[in-house]
């Protein structure tokens, strides 16, 4: 169908009115440019937010005690639920699908009062009592020294792993923090490690403001007994934490003597579910990108239809002549179709190319780490490019169809009569 003759025919015809061809092509060029850019930007946003979200293992949840809303077994309603360290053992025993069970206790935090001092310097940091495997849930880079270990837990050592910003706040520039002592709420801890959040994009600051100390030390030093602030639970990859959630809550209710129907006593935050929601949000954004871009492209396509209709009208006589010379209706139709296809495809591919250029410049400007919060490396993958190409082919066919049919509706005799 596509031979050299056809090509020269098509190019001749398109060349006959170059400026108009150019303007028409611009409509499609613009449409596909915006379509691809929208998808790329959505992609960038998705990547940015996922990176921000993604440090903590995604198949995880946090769970903590709240107040009971129902009396149960002689216990009143409104009772404060306090999770205990033996709940961890119960969960480990009854929910083998859980990969990591981290009991945690926290102190201080965002906008808290100054709680840490070293020599004449003080600072407000969040202090967290943790088990060594917590680092598997929230990956971090240890830049000096080490993280917590089980001997720290067993011996209740007064040691601390501190964040990058804690170093900045409590130490002079160039001072080596490992081996030094800091005072948390009046208790001395030796710094054994420094960490920074792994490839973080967003909440870097918050994370780097944390001090990790062994869970057992925390309980003893700050009088928590066998209390647990909350649990950070991560399931094995093959099991969804969301599916495990009802069982976990049930176990905790039994453990803590809570009415089985009490919905409020145990609070939780399901990261997997939240992550799913965000993924869903971006799926919708992508869809919106397709729809908006597609609609803009549609107006470009309508431009092509319009011009092709005018072309057909202008060339009615030429078409009549061609048919008198032996062009079959199919000859005429396919020529119009191919003209619009070529026009659409060339301008569309040009649009994709320019969009890729713009994306490249954007990435270049943003740098590898992404200077803008919640936004990282916008990109179009091969799928998007192929989908755009598919849309173009369909658009080109669509754009040519009506004019092509129109072209053959006129009888050759009527076409010839037009002066």
């Amino acid at each position, binding site marked *: 169908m596509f031979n*050299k*003759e056809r090509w020269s025919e098509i190019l*001749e*015809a398109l*060349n*006959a009115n170059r400026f108009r061809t150019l303007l028409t092509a611009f409509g499609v060029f613009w449409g596909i440019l915006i379509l691809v850019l929208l998808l790329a930007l959505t992609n960038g946003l998705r990547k940015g937010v996922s990176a921000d979200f993604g440090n903590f293992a995604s198949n995880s949840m946090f769970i903590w005690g709240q107040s009971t809303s129902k009396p149960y077994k002689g216990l009143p309603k409104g009772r404060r639920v306090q999770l205990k360290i033996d709940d961890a053992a119960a969960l480990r025993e009854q929910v083998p699908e859980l990969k990591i069970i981290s009991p945690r206790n926290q102190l201080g935090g965002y906008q808290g009062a100054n709680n840490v001092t070293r020599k004449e310097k003080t600072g407000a940091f969040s202090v967290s009592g943790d088990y060594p495997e917590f680092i598997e849930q929230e990956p971090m880079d240890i830049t000096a020294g080490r993280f917590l270990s089980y001997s720290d837990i067993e011996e209740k050592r007064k040691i601390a792993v501190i964040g990058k910003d804690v170093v900045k706040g409590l130490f002079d520039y160039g001072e080596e923090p490992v081996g030094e002592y800091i005072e948390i709420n009046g208790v001395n801890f030796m710094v054994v490690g420094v960490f920074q959040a792994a490839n973080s994009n967003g909440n870097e600051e918050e994370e780097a403001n944390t001090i990790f100390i062994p869970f057992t030390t925390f309980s003893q030093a700050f009088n928590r007994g066998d209390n647990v602030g909350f649990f950070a639970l991560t399931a094995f990859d093959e099991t969804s934490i969301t599916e495990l959630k009802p069982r976990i809550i049930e176990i905790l209710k039994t453990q803590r003597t809570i009415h089985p129907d009490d919905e409020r006593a145990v609070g939780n935050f399901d990261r997997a579910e939240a992550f799913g929601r965000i993924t869903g949000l971006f799926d919708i954004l992508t869809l919106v990108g397709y729809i908006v871009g597609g609609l803009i492209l549609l107006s470009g396509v309508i431009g092509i239809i319009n011009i092709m209709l005018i072309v057909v009208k202008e060339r009615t*006589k*030429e078409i*009549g*002549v*061609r*048919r*008198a*010379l*032996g*062009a*079959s*209706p*199919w*000859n005429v139709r396919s020529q119009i179709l191919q003209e619009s296809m070529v026009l659409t495809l060339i301008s569309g591919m040009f649009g994709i190319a320019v969009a890729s250029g713009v994306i490249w410049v954007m990435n270049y400007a943003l740098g590898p780490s992404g200077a803008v919060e919640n936004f990282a490396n916008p990109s179009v993958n091969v799928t998007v490019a192929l989908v755009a190409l598919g849309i173009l082919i369909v658009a080109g066919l669509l754009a040519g169809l009506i004019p092509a049919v129109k072209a*053959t509706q006129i*009888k*050759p*005799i009527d076409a*010839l009569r037009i*002066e």
Partner: protein
Amino acid sequence: MIEIQNLHKSYQMGSNSLHVLKGIDFSVKEGELVSIMGSSGSGKSTLLNILGMLDEADEGSYDLDGVLIKNLNEKIAAQYRNKFLGFIFQSFNLINYKNALDNVSMPLYYQGVKRSERTDKAMHYLEKVGLAQWAHHLPSELSGGQKQRVAIARALASDPKVLLADEPTGALDTKTSYEVMELIQGINDEGKTILVVTHEPDIAEMTKRIVNLKDGRIIDDTLVNQVKASTHV
């Protein structure tokens, strides 16, 4: 070559029906040069359109070189036109963005002839009409007479059985008209059957037979002594 019997054609003009051809019986033998004359509205163009398979008769039969032309769909009509007929129009109808050579080779393109062969053939016919050196010029760079010569070359390119010329000299001055007629006579002398629609008596005189149409009927069909156009030039 052409056999027409009892041909009727009417056009629907709003609520009125316009009976244009009212029973035409007409035949043309191979090698004839026939002019169809008549005032405007006599039906001569309609007759030519039907002969050219651009239009279809309501009634009657049309036989072209032993092939009954009836109930053609557009595809077959296009094939027949391409194979059997060459058209020459009053307003030349060259494709303005194609050069003379490409215009001439168009019927061959629709026959599916290969490019090199097409160019050779088209060049041959351009030589025949004396325009070889204008082959790569666009129609806009040619004079009226030259355009019509290109159109004639194009009509000849597919080596059709019959040439149909609709007022071929209508847009030309007298001198150029005679030059074009001389060319047409030359082609006829080589054995090609040619039908010329005209309303100019001097042009009709240059054919071998004059058919007079009035109000959709043939009122006169006479063989004449051909005036050679070369005597006028």
